[in-house]
């Protein structure tokens, strides 16, 4: 999918694989992901006049989808979005795993599989923050808008999500047989 600003129904529909991938990673339920992507298409087609081309079509659609995902999280969790992270960070959270021998380092493809699976260990908001900022490479200001969180909250979500995935990757490399 390119960064084209052309906003035809076909262009929107062509984004389906990208949006389904994002939704699958975010909610981990196929049926829910499909519903969210369909809702995104409806919203995009109805609001196409709001697409001003300042961001790519992909980013715009991912933004709509992210808001649908947040709404889904709100409906399924009574206490989800707070301004203040619920727990203080403990120093041990950031400690590196024991150094593994060079020969156990995973190749890039295997590392992608490990990190992909590791996304399930993040909280919903940590996962969404990482998906937006790292996978989709949306800047933090836009991600805050998409997630309806303050910059300080996004900062904590990214920090925790990334370090959790770092430990997942390090732990996988400590086990020579892999995951």
């Amino acid at each position, binding site marked *: 999918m390119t960064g084209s600003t052309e906003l035809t129904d076909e262009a929107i529909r062509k984004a389906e*694989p*990208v949006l*389904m*991938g*994002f*939704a*699958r*990673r975010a*909610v*981990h*339920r*196929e049926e*829910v*992901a499909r519903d969210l992507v369909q809702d995104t298409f409806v919203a995009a087609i109805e609001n196409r006049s709001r697409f001003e081309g300042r961001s790519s079509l992909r980013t715009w659609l991912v933004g709509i989808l992210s808001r649908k995902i947040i709404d889904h*999280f709100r409906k399924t*969790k009574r*206490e*989800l*979005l707070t301004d203040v992270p619920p727990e203080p*960070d403990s*120093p041990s959270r*950031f*400690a*590196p795993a024991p*150094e593994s021998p060079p020969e156990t380092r995973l190749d*890039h493809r295997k*590392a*992608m599989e490990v*990190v*992909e699976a590791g996304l*399930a*260990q*993040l*909280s*919903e*908001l*940590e*996962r969404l923050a*990482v998906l937006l*900022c*790292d*996978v*989709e*490479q949306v800047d*933090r200001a836009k991600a805050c808008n998409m997630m309806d969180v303050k910059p300080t909250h996004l*900062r904590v979500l*990214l*920090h925790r999500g*990334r*370090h959790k*995935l*770092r430990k997942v*990757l*390090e732990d996988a490399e400590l086990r020579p047989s892999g995951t």
Partner: protein
Amino acid sequence: MLSCDQVARELSDAIDGETPLWTRLQMRLHLAMCRTCRRVAGSLERTVDVLRSLRDAPPDRGDDEHDGHG
């Protein structure tokens, strides 16, 4: 000088260029002298690099029943 814990907290921001100049300088000084934090920094950068690779590699299905906490 920054402690290891302080450096760990700043690493994520540093990856995104969100760290103030003075803090960046202090981090560089710390990382020059602390092998453990260098490992954490390298590992975190690699993790983010792997995440960026996922952009063009969407997953096949999302049938996991895992339900994370918010």
